């Protein structure tokens, strides 16, 4: 009679079914667009800017909307200086260096899983990615916290320290700020979900066989 430890051991050693491997492959492909699409999007609406000032955070850069009539990142920084907030500078974001590398790692790791077809690899892949996702959120939250709490005490307009919102909307002086995940985030969620699906796809037929 197999112990539960044995069954767990057996489960990690399982070879992935063909359907699982296809699912992992598709998951890996979902990571490709994350290099091109924004991870997070912020839009600041006010009476003067009915179309909103728009800021996209990519895994590797900050990009304000740019039209012939406006440079939104520059404008956001100009407005923020009134409350003593540091200008948003790409060079301040360590995330822009390590995030693309880590995502690249997960992409390669997933392809490796497809090739070797081991359940243990797949589970490692999924769990590590979950950690990575949570860590990234925590890291961005910290970043925003730092921007909102290290305000220049000599600023012309004094506001109590605050954390710019990460999810949903918030009123900030004359601006309503919307902050929501961008397409790259959804692709990353898709990656994780497909890995979980791949795990399930292999478990079921094996259980039926035993």
């Amino acid at each position: 009679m197999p112990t539960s430890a044995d069954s767990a051991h057996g489960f990690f050693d399982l070879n992935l079914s063909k359907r699982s491997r296809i699912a992992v492959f598709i998951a890996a492909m979902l990571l490709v667009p994350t290099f091109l699409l924004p991870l997070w999007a912020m839009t600041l609406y006010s009476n003067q800017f009915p179309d909103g000032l728009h800021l996209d955070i990519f895994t590797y850069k900050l990009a304000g909307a740019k039209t012939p009539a406006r440079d939104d990142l520059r404008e956001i920084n100009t407005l923020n200086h009134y409350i003593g907030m540091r200008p948003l500078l790409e060079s301040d974001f360590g995330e822009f260096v390590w995030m693309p590398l880590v995502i690249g790692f997960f992409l390669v790791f997933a392809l490796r899983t497809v090739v070797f077809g081991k359940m243990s690899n797949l589970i490692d892949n999924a769990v590590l990615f979950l950690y990575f996702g949570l860590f990234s959120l925590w890291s961005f939250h910290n970043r925003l916290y730092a921007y909102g709490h290290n305000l220049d005490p000599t600023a012309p307009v004094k506001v109590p320290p605050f954390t710019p919102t990460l999810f949903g909307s918030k009123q900030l002086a004359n601006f309503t700020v919307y902050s929501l995940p961008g397409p790259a985030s959804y692709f990353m969620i898709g990656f994780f979900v497909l890995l979980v699906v791949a795990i399930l796809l292999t478990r079921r037929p094996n259980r039926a066989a035993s």
Partner: protein
Amino acid sequence: MGSRRNFSRFALGAGIALLIAGSAYSGCARRPKVQRGDTAQAAIATYVAPGDTDEFYLFYSGGQSGNIFVAGIPSMRHIATIPVYTPYPGTGYGFDKETKAMLGGYSWGDVHHPALSQTNGDYDARWLFANDNANNRMARIDLRDFKTKEIYGPLPNVSGNHGSTFVTPNTEYILAATRFSVPLPKGSYAPLEQYATTYKGVVSGVAVDPKTGHMNMAWQVLMPPFNFDLGSGGKGASDGWAFWSCYNSERATGKLEVTSTQKDRDYIAAVNWKAAEQAIKNGKFKTIGGTKVIDPKDTPGVVFLMPCSKSPHGVDVSPDGKYIVGSGKLQSITTVFNMGKVQDAIQNKKFTGDEDGIPVLNYDAIKDAEVNVGLGPLHTQFDDKGYAYTSLFVESAIAKWKMGTWEVVDKIPVAYNIGHLCVPGSDTMHPVGKYVLALNKLSHGRHISVGPSQPESSQLIDITGDKMKLLYDAFTEPEPHYAQIIRTDRIKPIEVYTKDDNKDPNAIWDVKDAGVTRNGKNVIVKIAAVRSNFTPASFEVNQGDHVTVYLTNIEQTTDELHGFGLMEYNLNVVVDPGETKTIEFTADKPGVFAYYCTNFCSALHQEMQGYMLVKPSAGAKTALLKMPSPAGAAR
């Protein structure tokens, strides 16, 4: 009983008296009765709801104000003023080094006829040209940023550049002509008694560089001392020709009102500019006033005279170029000339005489019709349905008439004394027959009174139906003459200058690069303006230093303008987002002078200021004593 009858008789009599009084009263009310429904329709037709924008740009000349006004149609709202020949502190025009140099020491101009540049006979929305009737110049406004980029002139040999800035179909040339003949070259002297023989006029073509828009005199034709008035570029059937009307073919001086109105006919000069080009190429010119001038006596085939009814003002070419329409302002007819017949008359030498060697064409051989339009016809515009619209100054009306049948089909009164009129694109090959704008000289009683100095009036009239319909009265500062109207979607202006746009080598983009450098008595101050501060917020110079300020607005957001007003130094410039301007002056007054942002920019705009500290030089005490006392300055 008797008293009762008397009473009723009295009552009846009183009733009749009231009726008469009533009809007399309504007879006095000169304003035509307007139905409520018409008013509502006109209101809807011109109403542009808050946040919505207009369908057409209207560029009208500002006359002696030296500016171009920009308005929207159909709302007729004045939206901006483009300073051209006159300093305009509102935008700092004429205060910075570049625009000061462009004005060349002149402080006014007289803009009459703006012209949009054309490609293949249609507006290409690149440039707007504007003439200066007073100081003989022409200017180019770039429609990318609505700014005056070049002022060319005073034009050699041209005196009173009225017949300008009409363009040829591919903006090969801008027309320019003499209104007030003088002895040539300019600067020569001859007594007025020699006017008829020694004084000369010129008609000319100023070439436009198709890439840069740069203007340069290309050819001139020496003309008798007539007063050349309006111009028009030939197109289609008349491509390669340019036309100018003229009065005073009497070659008279003194009070022209009388002396120049003795003959029954004056002329429209028709210049074959392709022949003029060829003559210049063949070296058939004299150099007068440093420019190439063709003398028609020596070079036949360049210019011909078309007799036109007495003292013509406007000359206008129809969209297909087949007809040239001229109106004698002292008669009640407008003459339609046929370009085919003109060319035939030239070929078969149907001449009736000459003026200083210039052949005069046979009037009856070249005219197609005399249209009985009404009193005081001036200018004619065309729509896209085969109708022409002629302004009637004396009659204060516009006559609509049909090309081909030459019959007047409608007339509408205007308030009052119309000069030019404008149909969108009438001077191109594809007019948009939606509106005609009446540019009237008098406006009294149509607006709230502003005392003796009254504004001009512009009336928007709907021409889409059989009957012209008055839609709107608008009032402007002095003094629109002609206008250009173009569809809004044709022009795509920029709203900020990007780093690429800003070619100024002294531009700075970061406050870190702002600062003061000194080289002997020359002090260079690079100032960055951004909400809501100047960097540096102060600078120090010595009395007598030559100061150059390079001021850059480092914003990249539309509508975030900053000004730089320097107290008691009579300086104000305004910089648009991403723009750099140069301000040069000698710090001759010692003391401490504030500079501040003059263009309201932000919540902390009032705080946007700085100080220029001018250290007195050794002789400063004397200098201070010499300064006028406040009491002396007050009057």
